[in-house]
């Protein structure tokens, strides 16, 4: 009973923005007739936005891009970072380890928002650009974590035994080390996803993310700011949903990890 109660708040916080983001577009009306800008008459649930579109309709439409871009960027980070970390952690060639890891130190020296602003403004405004840049910014941390995990795992007697039996390195790497790393990496997943959400949303807010015409929660906050005194809903609703998503994901993952102790806390 205790555990179920413990999940109530985090799960609600995640569920509301996530369901709105994923299924909202199905319920949104294609009717984009424009009304008076920043009006708060009874006709619209949350009033109208800076060009007179219905705020609730925009909220229904605007979450999908944020959640999808952040999720795909997180997946891409892992797809690149885990093999890199696995090779760097398992190799006995010190030089290869250095060649793989040193450039990441340089990446860390550049503030992520600076990198985001520069890289995104160089490339055309498209979702895949944002995905690639966010994945790149999150890369060093995940490579480090996977390297550390692989390093400690490959020192285990089991790995030594497999080597003596003449198993190939690729088999040991994929069959044993990579599989044993799953837990360490899963423990980190929530942080990476909220980190990606943070970057994607901030980019859209600064106007360098997705196309400015697109319906997007972060872009809504930016565009409707000028009417904050007249019509706060157009800003508050999307901002609140973004905060709920970040807070909810963090709290839920923390709960999951604490309930699955100690197996999940197998940190290297």
């Amino acid at each position, binding site marked *: 009973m205790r555990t179920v109660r413990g999940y109530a708040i985090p799960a609600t916080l995640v569920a509301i923005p996530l369901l709105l983001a994923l299924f909202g577009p199905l319920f949104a009306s294609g009717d984009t007739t424009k009304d008076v800008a920043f009006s708060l008459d009874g006709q619209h649930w949350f009033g109208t936005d800076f060009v007179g579109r219905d705020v609730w309709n925009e909220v229904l439409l605007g979450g999908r891009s944020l959640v999808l871009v952040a999720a795909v960027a997180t997946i891409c980070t892992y797809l690149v970072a885990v093999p890199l970390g696995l090779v760097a952690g398992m190799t006995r060639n010190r030089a290869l380890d250095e060649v793989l890891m040193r450039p990441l*130190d*340089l990446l*860390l*020296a*550049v*503030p*992520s*928002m*600076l990198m985001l*602003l*520069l*890289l995104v*403004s*160089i490339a055309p405004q498209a979702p895949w650009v944002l995905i690639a840049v966010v994945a790149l910014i999150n890369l060093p941390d995940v490579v480090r974590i996977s390297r550390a995990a692989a390093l400690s795992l490959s020192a285990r007697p089991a790995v030594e035994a497999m080597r003596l039996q003449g198993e190939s390195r690729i088999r040991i790497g994929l069959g044993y080390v990579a599989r044993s790393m799953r837990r360490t990496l899963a423990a980190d997943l929530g*942080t990476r996803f*909220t*980190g990606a*959400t*943070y970057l994607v*949303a*901030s980019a859209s*807010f*600064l106007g*360098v993310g997705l196309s400015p015409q697109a319906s997007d929660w*972060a872009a809504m*906050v*930016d565009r409707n*700011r000028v009417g*904050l*005194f007249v019509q*706060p809903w157009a*800003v*508050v609703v*999307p*901002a*609140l949903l*973004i*905060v709920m998503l*970040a*807070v*909810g994901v*963090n*709290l839920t993952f*923390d709960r999951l990890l604490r309930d699955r102790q100690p197996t999940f806390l197998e940190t290297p």
Partner: protein
Amino acid sequence: MTIPRYLAHRALLGVVQVLVVMAGMFFLTEALPGDAAVTIAGDNPDPAMIADLRERLGLNESSWHRLGDWLVAALHGDFGQSLLAPRSVVDIVASAAEPTLLLAGLTLVLLIPLSVGLGVLAAHREGSRLDRLISGTTLGLYSAPEFAMGILIVTVFAVKLGWFPPTAVGTSLTDNPAVLVLPVFVLLLRPICSLSRLVRAGMIDAQQSDYVRHVLRLGLSPARVRFTHSLPNAVAPAAQQLARTVDWLVGGVIVIEAIFVVPGLGTTLAAAVAARDLPVIQGLAVVFATTTVLVNLVADIAARVLAPTAEVGR
């Protein structure tokens, strides 16, 4: 490794980091679509005028050639002229630096005592309702984007309650300190959360360690043990996170300056990126990257001095 050798090693790495980042930034900004000649030429560009501007601005030289020139000049403190305004980059950066330094400095000054205090308090009352409240809040809020938190806080405290001004428009930060309250509060949120969690975890670890139990048995007062023996060990990992915080502060400052309309480095950067003003972007990139590298250096050294046994800065 002895401390002086470690220092020399880290300082050298720092210099290499800054140089590589400078070169990287140079080529990145080179790759920005369009160039200043097109921007200056305006909406109805005349090809002859653009060619002439390119010649005068030196945009026709090879990239490597310009990188060399730029690096040599930059080491002499000359970052060139803005392409859009008749001012030097150093002048532009210097005049925008004051509000940003004020915001970031004030945040850092408040950040350390607040997060250490909060962490020590939560660790002292481990498991209590207060601890759960602090831990839950700090865990939840640390990855909430500043712009979303900022706009919600502005809505409540500036628009609804009217306690603080919503933007810095029409006033300066130094003349009217009330303007600073909301931006600094929002800037503090994320770093406080991560730092106080680290301090809390470190304090709990240290309080349960063998040597703390030993000095307690020797008869030292619990308060003295807590602050002179446990705290330094708890602060060591936090010192490294503080370096990470600078990365957050740079990002936070860019967003916060946009929300509160502060004419600082962040606003200047956003405007320079939009206008493709390469020299200004490069100058700001160097400032931000050098700050990050320097703070990382100081944090690594501080962590090593505080807890010499810890494995620090690979």
